[in-house]
């Protein structure tokens, strides 16, 4: 049984252009793995630029390429940081991130397993995010002095600063475990 929050869409099997990276969650310590978030995000961002080539004598094409590269890098890095922070290392479930390229958008799909308590707390937060004004929520989170090194601010900035649409799916895996799938749709 799945719960969905925000603008979540089921991806058809006949997916267009895409790329997927998958990581096992318990093979090396978090600290060493942290560095890989940046490497993976850089790779995904560079990969995407292939689809938005620079056109000679058109400075706008370079600016657009740089903007898309920056947005993909930021969003992918945040999704991976959250996944590494909140995955449960006792669950031998992989973390995956997929990019689906479409004519006018890029869809990010990140998935990881966590324990049910953490998953439910995250579900409560994203339900608030999906129904709030992101600018107001951004200021409120910081003014509250909340420990925002967590997922909160990363997701809020995706909506507030990048105009992304977010959706989530929560699947009960049994034995107190849960799979959380986050989708970020970036219009380009």
């Amino acid at each position: 049984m799945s719960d969905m929050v925000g603008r979540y869409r089921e991806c058809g099997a006949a997916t267009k252009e895409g790329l997927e990276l998958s990581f096992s969650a318990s093979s090396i310590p978090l600290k060493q793995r942290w560095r890989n978030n940046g490497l993976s995000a850089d790779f995904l961002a560079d990969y995407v630029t292939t689809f938005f080539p620079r056109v000679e004598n058109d400075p706008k094409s370079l600016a657009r390429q740089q903007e898309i590269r920056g947005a993909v890098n930021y969003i992918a890095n945040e999704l991976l940081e959250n996944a590494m922070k909140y995955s449960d290392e006792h669950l031998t479930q992989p973390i995956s991130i997929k990019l689906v390229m479409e004519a006018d958008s890029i869809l990010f799909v990140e998935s990881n397993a966590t324990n049910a308590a953490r998953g439910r707390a995250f579900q409560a937060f994203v339900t608030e995010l999906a129904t709030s004004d992101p600018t107001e929520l951004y200021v409120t989170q910081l003014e509250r002095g909340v420990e925002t090194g967590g997922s909160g601010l990363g997701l809020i900035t995706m909506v507030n600063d990048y105009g992304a649409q977010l959706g989530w799916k929560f699947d009960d895996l049994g034995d107190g475990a849960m799979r959380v799938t986050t989708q970020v749709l970036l219009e380009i």
Partner: protein
Amino acid sequence: MEIVVSGEQYSVEWDAPTRTAALKGILRLNGLEEYGPIARFLSSAVPEGKMTLDVRSLEFLNSSGIAMLSKFVIEIRNRKTVDLNVVGSTAISWQGKSLANLCKLMPSLKMEII
């Protein structure tokens, strides 16, 4: 310029005559705890008067870094003794997207994106 904090991909430099702190490179530290040395330097750099935060060479900042800068700006706003300028670059994508949020936290902040 004197390097006051540095790591594998970043540095924080301080120019005492102009009271300018420059963040440079790529900042993807894990949570506010890892940002502690930078946050402590920024909040103690100038007790009163003018201060400039120059991020023109900061190519990447994750959300924990945005949280750290936001908390710094809130602290300066509440202290009411520091006149803060922030200088950014139009050439770096995250700055065009996220830097203006600092003005929402401190309306008297002077922001220049060049």
